């Protein structure tokens, strides 16, 4: 019952590489990561691919399938026509290390700089807090993030304009939003978001939301409310009055 499928995989490094074609026997329910593993086990043992859980929970196997950012473990072979060649390439917004593996260390550097969580004083004498489910639903949505960085990969500010120095990207905005909207948190990240984080670079095209494998409403629920907070923080009533008076 196994049909032969054609895959083209990027093989190479930062300096040079090419698309190489492979044939794989595809069984029922097979995902693209299975096909890549089959190639690795039988035809190309040195083929580099990152993966861990193979269940869409760790966000390691991010790459691009026919040019679209996807998790290899959550994309079924049967989503593509039987005669279609499936092309797998590394994420474009990050430097290639080898084959399908990219250097995503930049994300970890950005994360380190986001001001840390700072809880208010405990609510109860035993040192615990009281929070209600309705208050935490929003930040819980952001905590679903598996750090696959597909949203970073699709974001044109990073992918096309390479503004990694000036813009933290949607994944890290979601990371900051967890704490900004955390009911216990008292830290103020608005200045960080405006300057170092470069939140102004986002022009709300929502590509990140579309690509998120965890269906986090990145733009509407995280980025736009953060932008509003940043704007509020920088609203100066005297300056506004002056502008009004002087036209």
């Amino acid at each position, binding site marked *: 019952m196994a049909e032969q499928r054609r895959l083209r995989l990027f093989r190479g490094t930062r300096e040079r590489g090419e698309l190489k074609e492979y044939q794989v026997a595809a069984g029922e329910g097979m995902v693209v990561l299975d096909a890549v593993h089959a190639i690795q086990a039988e035809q190309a*043992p*040195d*083929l580099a691919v990152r993966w861990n859980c193979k269940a869409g929970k760790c966000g390691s196997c991010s790459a691009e399938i026919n040019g679209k950012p996807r998790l290899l473990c959550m994309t079924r072979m049967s989503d593509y026509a039987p005669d279609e060649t499936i092309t797998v390439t590394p994420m474009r917004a990050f430097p290639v290390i080898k084959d399908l593996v990219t*250097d995503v260390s930049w994300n970890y550097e950005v*994360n380190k700089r986001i001001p840390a969580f700072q809880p208010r004083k405990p609510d109860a004498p035993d040192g615990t807090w009281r929070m209600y489910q309705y208050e935490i639903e929003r930040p*819980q949505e952001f905590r679903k993030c*598996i750090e696959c960085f597909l949203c970073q990969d699709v974001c044109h500010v990073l992918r096309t304009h390479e503004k990694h120095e000036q813009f933290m990207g949607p994944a890290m905005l979601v990371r900051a939003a967890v704490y900004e909207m955390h009911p216990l948190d008292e830290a103020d990240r608005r200045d960080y978001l405006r300057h170092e984080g470069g939140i102004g670079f986002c022009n709300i095209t929502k590509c990140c939301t579309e690509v998120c494998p965890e269906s986090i409403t990145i733009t509407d629920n995280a980025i736009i409310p953060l932008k509003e907070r940043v704007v509020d923080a920088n609203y100066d009533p005297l300056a506004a009055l002056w502008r009004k008076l002087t036209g």
Partner: protein
Amino acid sequence: MAPAASDLRTHNYDVVVIGAGGAGLRAAIEASAQKAKVALVCKSLLGKAHTVMAEGGAAAALGNVMSEDNWRVHFRDTMRGGKMHNNWRMAQIHAQESPDRINELEAWGALFDRTPDGRINQRPFGGHTYSRLAHVGDRTGLEMIRVLQDKGVHSGIEVHMECTIVRLFLVSGKIAGALGYFRETGRFVLFKTGAIVIATGGIGKAWQITSNSWEYTGDGHALAYEAGAQLIDMEFVQFHPTGMVWPPSVRGILVTEGVRGEGGVLKNSAGERFMFRYMPDMFKGDFAETEAEADAWVKGERKKNRRPPELLTRDVVSKAITREIAEGRGTPHGGVLLDIASKQNPDYIKQKLPSMYHQFKELAHVDITKDAMEIGPTTHYVMGGVKVDAETQESTVPGLYAAGEVGGGMHGANRLGGNSLSDLLVFGRRAGQYAAGKRGAAAAIPDAEVEQAMRETLEPFERQGENPYAVQSALQAVMQRDAGIIRDKAGLENALAELEKLKTRARKVGVMGSREYNPGWHTAIDLRSLLIVSEATARAGLERTESRGAHTRSDYPDSDERQAREQIVIKKEGDRMTVRRETQPPLPADLMALIKEGK
């Protein structure tokens, strides 16, 4: 490809933690809090460790949902679930300290699901008398990893990602350092330190059907064994009752016990809810005896009714499922049915079990709010591991600590669901604390030893040998067939004979390509660990001539109370793996009284 001196980078640390799952992160945070200079070394990227896959929750007797709960009941449940084989002191410390460790995570930013009065909510789980698992939907492990990760990066810990440790060094019998290589470059790194915490997780990759990721090759068990540490309880490997069985490519992926905690029921192909027929004597009277009683409990009437039998301990449920399938009452794909659709409404299921909903929809095209899931047992967790001191987590090798799944003793013959996430917090913290106390200048490691270890690591490049993936897959087939849920003497002896042949094959594997990010090479290196833990499991399994908890011998189907407190100890002597029995100290009278209270 002889290693050159320029090949080696050297670092000095007070404490080196190997593994960045929950236990490793918690250990590193604690050691750092004690002002130690700490390195955290992990095989994957930070935040990808197996802990992210833990779904159901962390067990802690907070008493937020059922105020009757306290550490004594948690201790009793853990000991009974472990079939009285546990290290009692570890079980006691775990039950006493878990609540503080969970509350501490909240202080660091964790967002656990809430009770109506605003406290941390707790859900029921297999083997726990009261609702006890602090949770976040069905992605509790992910929440814990993120919180620990953020706490860690703001604590000044130095993280070395995608770095595999291949050797520990001892000088005068004490830990002096570790050699590793970076996956990206293939270059070596030497960590000089007097204290190492192993937190590498489990060994599940030695079986074909497993819920474990590629990382779970038993590296920490093998490193400690090679360094002369003792391994205990290696025969006790937990087969989780509910893994996916169809389609073939997802076989083994975990289906959380939370499905049963939220009311899911197990049925055979005849539609019978079979767990009522599998009540062990030890638990008679603790569980519902009719479907009506079980259903009432699920609806929340928990004072008058008892828990459904689907919430029996994992060893019991796995064996029941295996029996149903063996006797011809399984599904065509070789599983049984797990049905929550007929017990809870779709919105509730999606809210409480979002990743299960997603997982079945994407990978199996099954809507769990409408249809039953096809499930079967999957290799999940090893109770056995490095023998450690209960208070300090130090192994029998001075300066070498172990915490989390790689540590042995806490869970006895069978682990309760939810006790792993709390275990790694409690004992991760203790390991970090005591390892930091060990600091001091590490003794110099002779260059020749380091060079030899580097040479051995590079050997596969010099051979035109067999593909390492073929050897790995042959090993998995042997363990699945001969050291699975049901074992016997002939099978285990056969496994040992096959493993001998595989050792020879492993010594001859060759890899092609460069040292940069070369998975073929990584697999060749991991084979050494897999072979050690597989042999340890088979030898210990052969030695234990009884059935207890997760270890089931068809030729010794009953438990033998004389062996209850006997531990099978594995240790390297010369080039040989030795096996001996050791009797654990008896429970003190006050703790024994707690156990009896519950009967």
